[in-house]
């Protein structure tokens, strides 16, 4: 993203009728919805943990994380497994079905107003023909600030 001359390969997913992208390099796999075990006393957007081929993986509902309502799971719902440093987390999204190359030049910094989203999570916006792709800053999405806040309230 910093390097504007380089193309960026991203996984495209839908959330509330908008299109988002995360770099392919961060994505481990895309899974269908499996039974999720609720973990008590965690943030509301933490749906729980899932058995991902023998690894217990935490699952976050991105809609709830972005405060745009709760996901309703259907056939198209997917869980994107992303990894960041030593964390591995699954993100619940409405659908994920595309991998595209974004030419470096088309990425713009996040605009001041993008719908109702908190701009913290957005690292940039890519305009591709008639599509608008919101690129996520995973570090912000997975930052544990909110988790910590929750702990301090309890503790």
């Amino acid at each position: 993203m910093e390097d504007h001359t380089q193309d960026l390969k991203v996984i495209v997913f839908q959330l509330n009728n908008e299109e988002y992208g995360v770099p392919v390099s961060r994505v481990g796999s895309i899974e269908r919805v499996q039974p999720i075990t609720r973990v008590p006393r965690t943030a509301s957007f933490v749906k729980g943990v899932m058995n991902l081929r023998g690894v217990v993986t935490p699952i976050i509902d991105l809609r709830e994380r972005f405060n745009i309502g709760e996901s309703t799971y259907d056939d198209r719902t997917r869980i994107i497994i992303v990894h960041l440093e030593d964390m591995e987390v699954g993100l619940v999204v409405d659908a994920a079905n595309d991998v595209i190359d974004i030419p470096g030049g088309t990425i713009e910094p996040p605009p001041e107003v993008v719908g109702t989203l908190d701009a913290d999570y957005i690292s940039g916006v890519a305009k591709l023909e008639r599509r608008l792709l919101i690129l996520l800053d995973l570090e912000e999405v997975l930052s544990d600030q909110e988790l910590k806040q929750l702990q301090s309230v309890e503790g």
Partner: protein
Amino acid sequence: MEMSQYLEVFIEESKEHLQTVNDSLLKLEKNPEDLTIVSEIFRAAHTLKGMSATMNYQDLANLTHKMENVLDLIRNSKIQVDSDLLDIIFDAVDDLEAMVGDIATGGQGERDVQQVVGKLERIEEGELPAKVQDEQVEMESKEASTSEISYELNLDEFQRTVLMESAEQGFTNYEITVSLTKDCMLKGARVYMVFEVLEQIGEVAQSAPTVDQLEEENFDLQFKVLLLSTHDEEDIQARILKVSEIDSVHIKKVTVEDYVSTTETSSLATSPHKDDSKDESNQHSSDKEQTAVAVKEKTETPEESKTQESQQKVAQSKTIRVNIDRLDVLMNLFEELVIDRGRLEQISTDLNHSELQETVERMSRISGDLQSIILNMRMVPVEQVFNRFPRMVRQLARDLNKKVNLVVEGAETELDRTVIDEIGDPLVHLIRNSLDHGIETPESRLAKGKPEEGNLKLQAYHSGNHVFIEISDDGGGINRDKVLQKAINNGLVTNEQASGLSNQQVFDYIMSSGFSTADQISDVSGRGVGLDVVKNTIESLGGSITIDSVPDKGSTFSIQLPLTLSIISVMLVEVQQEKYAVPLSSIIETAIVKKEDIMHAHNKQVIDFRGSVVPLVSLEDVFEVPQEFDKGDYYSIVIIRKGDKMAGLVVDSFIGQQEVVLKSLGNYLQNVFAISGATILGDGQVALIIDSNALIK
């Protein structure tokens, strides 16, 4: 670099040798007269020197060499063993350890050891250790050279007797000529390997050129060795030829008469500068002279043969070194297997197909055996941790001016490696604690009518699925009243409650965090520095710690640890639609009680359980479980405990007991309240494991 492949082995073995030196030095301090111990130290140091020279770690080799010189003087009774001398040697060992540590972390093993080397050299020259230790600059002693000569002459007399003895004991003497192949790359290493082989089957009495020269690769392709052994020629030859890059081996028997008749020659050969006389010319000298020199060398290690023999028997078990990472991978794979086994068991019960059930049962049994083998492979004797304590206790006792006798029992008890890695620090803490605050000064011990020397006992043993480690001292014990007073002042307990507490409950307070600030401790008979940390560490390992103490008789800290951390037995319970696992280790029993039998005390639900009042904890409330259905008239309760405290977890139904693989929730979800981890059940779903300690206040 071609050395790199030996590096790992070198580091491992160096550590082992240093540990031997450490242990033996401590033994020596207790029995300063026992020269077999010195020989043992000498042997370890010598091997270390050889290895480090071969590996080109000159500093390491030099320091070991200096240490060896001093040990040599001790061995020949030229200097007396006392604690000042041992302090200097310990310093040297510390430096050696630091060097090996440096090499292990990728350094060159270089270190400024001038001071220690200086001290060793001055001792070698005949100065009193105490003097050397106390004063940094000392004038050099002149006695050195004269004493050396007389010591050589003394040796001669010794030689004959020892040689006679070895002959009587049935040792045969062989002169072995070993030729290396012309293209041999690592002559020093090969020599070392040959010596290793020889030392296994007998005793190397002498070599030409000298060992030093051999190690420095200061020879052509041939060298000779005089070996005392009970093995026959062919056997020896075969063993030596197993070392690669050996061209030929010639073995010649040397008879007893030979060296009896050459005793006179031997006294000639043992000139004041003994090492210089054994140069390369010896390589081609006559048998007689060869044996003569051998005789002298032999005497330097008069008692070695016996100890070596006994050690051989111990060292016979065959082992291989396996990288711990590989074992971890094996363990992970096996965990997957355990999960699938659970799944298979479930499917076969559902299908009710007898042949399938039979096969699955068989598989379960085999995988059960496999599980215990794999777990066993990861077991390490606690010795690894205990090893460092004798040194520590010695040093601490000296610093504190106390006399302490450390007894270690059950060092061979095995624990999972993960537990071993964690348990060291808490034990150090407890031992320091016992030395500092438990055992009294010699004066006050005498005043109390106890022996001057305090006893500290470190004991490890297996019991059931647990390993116990106990640290007991015969010191002053814990003052119950003082602890109670402190607890009341800190608001941990009220005056009324205080009188009803058992001793154990009172002593538990010294491990609560309120007690851990320094100035409070000295009031409470001193105990408590960081004991809360100790307690936390042990509990995080799934263990527990209890304290027992009798005033003026001493205290015992008893640590209970699980054998392994990765596979645990749990009881699966259902709370509404959710499944949770409760570790079996914290469960006392399960009960089903009628709704009417539940009483209320202080706005809390309690039950009367075998005479004691047990508070109830509703998992539904604690875990905010969504309500799907109403509870009936009966409550299912799991009674758990934490130390002496109990609580009843209210659940909806018991599913059963199961062995599960403990998994973490991942780094994203850390410190979830009352959840210690997760496990994957037979149906592939994740169940959370309850941290019952968090549910009891």
